[in-house]
């Protein structure tokens, strides 16, 4: 493989991974903007998407589209149960307690997945076959096109929801100032629930579209969740363009680093990027610096 096609291949895989990171990042951003907490269990929704789809596909012999729809629904239900049982009772808890609870939930979901489905890795069959296309020297699988297509669709729907629907604007109002939002008649509790619903749905979808490319197992949630978090940190906790750029940037840097520096340190590169961003510019690359009331 000559250098330019190698570069094209790295860029392609970097962008497709980056799209997934961006989608996972949306999940973090939406919940954080509505509630102020970081949902450590976000990665587990991603894992559940892939694993549940495989379960429905293989064990219940459902066709692909119903399996996906059912998997997303079930993951969303898990998100709702999680919000009701663990988050809602503790709206006024210390930040440390909320962090611990979401970590506990992430561990619990991972452990439950391991009990139900074992430790093996599973492969989801690609949505439309395996015949590659060749563009600019890079091998593009149909699954890559699905990833880009569905990601763009979700990004557009996201933007439309938050900017053009009443519910979306109500959620943004909650993010700015939940007290003021409740004073104008917005039911903050419903908005919080909705944020979990959307995050779980987007997260599980992200898990489903990447699963045919990178096998899925009970513990993919940790790494994917963390990388989604890195994406949203780079993007400044926005549920829009910032996170998309953050995700793509992370995917590219990771892929190029793995290709040209060292493949086994791929994950370390992502975390070094995280530490650098947190040390130097924690508000992200695309936001103005914020001040906080003491």
């Amino acid at each position: 493989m000559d250098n330019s096609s190698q570069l094209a291949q790295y860029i392609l895989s970097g962008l497709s991974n980056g799209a997934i990171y961006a989608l996972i990042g949306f999940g973090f951003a939406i919940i954080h903007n509505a509630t102020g907490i970081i949902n450590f269990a976000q990665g587990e929704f991603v894992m559940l998407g892939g694993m549940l789809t495989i379960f429905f596909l293989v064990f219940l012999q459902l066709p692909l589209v119903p399996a996906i729809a059912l998997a997303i629904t079930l993951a969303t239900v898990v998100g709702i149960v999680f919000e009701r049982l663990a988050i809602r009772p503790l709206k006024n808890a210390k930040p440390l307690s909320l962090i611990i609870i979401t970590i506990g939930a992430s561990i619990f979901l991972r452990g439950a997945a391991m009990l139900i489905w074992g430790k093996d890795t599973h492969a989801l069959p690609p949505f439309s076959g395996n015949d590659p296309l060749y563009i600019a020297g890079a091998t593009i699988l149909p699954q890559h096109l699905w990833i880009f297509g569905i990601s763009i669709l979700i990004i557009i729907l996201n933007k439309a929801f938050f900017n053009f629907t009443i519910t979306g604007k109500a959620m943004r109002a909650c993010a700015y100032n939940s007290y003021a939002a409740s004073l104008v008649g917005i039911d903050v509790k419903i908005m919080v629930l909705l944020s979990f619903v959307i995050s779980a749905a987007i997260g599980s979808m992200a898990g489903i579209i990447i699963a045919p490319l990178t096998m899925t197992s009970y513990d993919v949630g940790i790494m994917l969740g963390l990388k989604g978090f890195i994406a949203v940190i780079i993007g400044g906790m926005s549920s829009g363009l910032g996170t998309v750029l953050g995700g793509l940037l992370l995917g590219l840097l990771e892929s190029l680093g793995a290709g040209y520096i060292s493949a086994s340190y791929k994950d370390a590169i992502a975390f070094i990027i995280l530490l650098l961003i947190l040390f130097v510019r924690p508000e992200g690359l695309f936001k103005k610096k914020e001040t906080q009331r003491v």
Partner: protein
Amino acid sequence: MTKEKRQILIFLFFAAAVLATPLFLKGSYFLNVLVFIGINTMLAVALNLLLGYAGQISLGHAAFFGLGAYISGILTTRFAIDPWQAMGLAGFCSAGLAFVIGFPILKLKGHYLAMATLGFGIIMYITFNETVGWTGGPSGLSGIPNLHIGSLIFDNDWNNYYLIWIFTLGVMLLSINLSQSRIGRALRAIHDSEVAARVMGVNARVLKVQIFTVSALLSAIAGSLYAHTMTFISPVAFGFNFSVELVTMVIIGGLGSIYGSFLGAAILTMLPELLRVFKDFDIVLYGLMLILITMYMPGGLISGLSMLAKFVASKIRGKQSNA
């Protein structure tokens, strides 16, 4: 009796119980378990200094444990350095790394600090795994020599028990002393409200880094002890899962409570033994315990026990006044 004197007395009782226990357990497998409980208690107390007193969350503490173990292991196997000196160097290097990384990392708060420490922990884990030339990579590092004082070699459960627990008791005493001092009060002030503490003159930035460094130093020493008693180490023990296990020990025992850390360490060390048949349930149980304890008993099991004690005492007093 003053509160401080009472704490020292409680500690002396605890230490006496710890030192006397092997006499009742001659040659039992349980002695081996207690050695592990000792190491985990030391780690949990070290983490408690950071998490319970200063309120700074660290999800990467296994990294310092591993760093201490690997530096000790590498220095003694590849460079034939005396184990005690290697332990000193391991502690010094880990403390140095913690000091350097502490300043930027502890500027962060809450979730960002959690993620940064998590990232740091994972970077260290990947390094342990990939620098095969030094660490032996995933297959681990073996042939680490035992510690010895003169002709007394620490290579069996009995000797190791006393070696580990003397260190652990020392760390516990250090923590009790720290909590009663000006520094301990300053740390708790930072925990409650960093801004208010700084307004009152506490140099929060430096103090947080200092306690982070001390915590890392103690964890590294625990790692070194672990390496020399196990004589074999591999990266698996120093990953994200163990970091979370340490946080779980501190939380379920009780933030800020030394004996709570012991309780948490004991429970979590014995859990795999108790669950032998249902071995795979351990992860699910950790998650559940974290959630339930944080929701319903935020002070940890120690606070639960003291609530129980007060309840029983009031019932007894009630009966006495009725009689």
